[in-house]
């Protein structure tokens, strides 16, 4: 049973940031904003408790997988390893798609933890979005230009401080 005060606290954006920073003090604030964007469907700038719990479990899974590949504890993994990491998360993607993701998110052949999480957040959000449309679960869905534009462009996180 959550008290009203706890509920309010848990619903606030600042709580999320606080929790994320506890999780990893080096966590980029932009990644936190991206998480809110991807999961903030009513554009309120906040996240409910259930969504937060789901995200927390996902973050742990992403962290564990990343760490299993980052054997030298450098805080980065090799671009190639990222493809394996994504596969081991259960995403069923073609070599072409995996290659694109690897190229898009890596810098000089390596991917830092923060960018890895950013990639996972997007992949999760986009897959969610797709799955909601694919009601017959056959791997295809119809998208109207207007709707996709809005969704994709709203994934933006400003780099301006």
């Amino acid at each position, binding site marked *: 049973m959550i008290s009203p005060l706890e509920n309010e606290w848990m619903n606030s954006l600042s709580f999320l940031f606080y929790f994320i920073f506890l999780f990893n003090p080096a966590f980029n604030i932009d990644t936190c904003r991206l998480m809110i964007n991807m999961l903030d469907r009513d554009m309120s700038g906040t996240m409910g408790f259930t969504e937060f719990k789901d995200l927390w479990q996902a973050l742990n899974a992403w962290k564990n997988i990343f760490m299993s590949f980052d054997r030298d504890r450098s805080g980065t993994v090799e671009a190639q390893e990222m493809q394996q990491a994504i596969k081991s998360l259960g995403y069923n993607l073609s070599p072409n798609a995996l290659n694109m993701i690897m190229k898009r998110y890596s810098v000089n052949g390596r991917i830092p933890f923060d960018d890895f999480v950013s990639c996972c957040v997007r992949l999760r959000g*986009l897959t969610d979005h797709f799955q909601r449309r694919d009601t017959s679960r056959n791997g295809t869905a119809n998208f109207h230009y207007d709707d996709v534009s809005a969704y994709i462009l709203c994934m933006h996180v400003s780099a301006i401080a």
Partner: protein
Amino acid sequence: MAYPGYGGYGSPMPPQGMPGGPMGRPLPNHMGGPMLGPMGGAPPQVGGYAPYGGGYPGTYGALTPAANDPMWGYFTAIAGQDGEVDAMELQRCLTQSGFTGTYSPFSLETCRIMIAMLDRDFTGKMGFSEFKELFVALNGWKQNFTMFDRDRSGTVEHHELTQAISSMGYRISPQALNAIIKRYNKGGRIYFDDYVACCVKLRALTDHFKRRDTMHQGSVHFGYDDFILCTMAI
């Protein structure tokens, strides 16, 4: 559901060879659709396509040999050993050239998506013709922005961005446009970097859509893999 991945989505992928499920269709036939065709040469059209509108045209006039092209020297100066430009090199180039002028320099993320916008072969880098195409687009967008930024604040207002996007030929509903612009504004104003990011994403997404919407219906039936290919890159 707590599980972060979506295991078993569509048919499971067999360990070798051509996967059989809807997501795993062989690439040359379905997965990428027209993406694997020779579409690198076709210039984007301004305002020609009803549901989507345009963006800025590329300069595909007479082909100058690269060596005679004034931009070639500039390109090779920043391209490095591999002869292609990556996001960091592009950021350096745009900053050093003073392209952004009095506006704040482009973020690395914006440079990444600029490359992704034209990176049709998914190398994560930009070749010379793509580089030229990008500069044409950037100049067009900058002109558009400075036209609206009359007070030279380095920002435009919500309604000005709405006008700017419409003037580029994009046909997006007012509600969608409103939601988009809300995301790009900081304190009620939109900065040049965010504005360019918006233009880049719009153009990339519109390109993807146009190539697949052969019936000009304003909608596309996506396979999951292709959807991810289009949307994760932007």
